[in-house]
């Protein structure tokens, strides 16, 4: 029973962490009384290691994907676009560009390479809901409103579908720039870990 519980707790940790510390950690757990408090402590720290060892672009993309899901839900539900939609889109693009830069910076800081690629992956993951909505629109599965009277912006299923591809070069460039800044910053912090 205890051995099974230890194996389960170990599986909660990322494989990379397990390969480094797994054997000794299992040995420590075997020597301790696994109370509810101890089990919850191990589970909480396993979640933290999972979060810490994930790729930076993935961690940044998840909240943006949630925002995209909300945007898609608004489009499907037929929330009016409104006169300020253009400004809203512009602000969203500015925040996304800053996030592309940040994902490039963070990736270069941690991995020492792949800043531009990370930002492009971030772009596609965060825009995935819009891409799927565009696909559903083109396939005729979901009707998508293209404009509202007095609205400052329009949407079309084609635009939703190709938007992430148009945005990819911007993402790559912002990520690459973030990588350059991170590489310069790393020189002042020689202890930065890979």
């Amino acid at each position: 029973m205890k051995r099974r519980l230890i194996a389960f707790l170990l599986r909660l940790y990322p494989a990379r962490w397990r390969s480094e510390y797994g054997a000794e950690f299992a040995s420590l757990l075997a020597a301790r009384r696994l109370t509810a408090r101890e089990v919850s402590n191990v589970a909480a720290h396993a979640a933290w290691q999972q979060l810490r060892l994930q790729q930076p672009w993935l961690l940044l993309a998840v909240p943006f994907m949630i925002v995209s899901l909300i945007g898609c839900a608004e489009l499907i539900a037929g929330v009016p676009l409104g006169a300020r939609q253009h400004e809203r889109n512009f602000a969203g693009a500015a925040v996304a560009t800053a996030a592309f830069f940040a994902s490039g910076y963070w990736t270069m800081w941690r991995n020492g390479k792949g800043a531009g690629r990370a930002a492009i992956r971030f772009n596609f993951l965060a825009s995935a809901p819009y891409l799927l909505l565009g696909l559903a629109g083109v396939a005729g599965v979901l009707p998508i409103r293209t404009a509202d009277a007095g609205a400052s912006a329009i949407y079309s299923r084609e635009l939703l579908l190709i938007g992430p591809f148009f945005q990819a070069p911007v993402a790559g460039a912002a990520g690459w720039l973030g990588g350059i800044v991170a590489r310069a910053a790393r020189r002042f912090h020689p202890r930065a870990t890979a």
Partner: protein
Amino acid sequence: MARKPKAGPASDPEILILSSLAEGPKHGYAILSDIEVFAGHTLGAGTLYTAITRLVEKGWIAPETPDGRQRPYRLTGEGHACLAQRLDEMQRLARVGLKRLSTA
């Protein structure tokens, strides 16, 4: 009976681990037992290994050759300097606080 403080520099897992290893290399279980004895804190196994991971990454402690399934850790030169600096700061703070308490 007074309650044990739950937070503060004296309960920082990193300081506790570094202080334990200042005596010599130890593996995880020995570090936990030592901390319980000298600081009165019971660290969780997850807390211990998160702090160990961080300290290894910072280069303040380093793993030694494994002894069976256990792997001892030792304090590095950098870890030694960092521990000395942080304990010195705590000592200075404690001295000021105690002096003010005695004159209040």
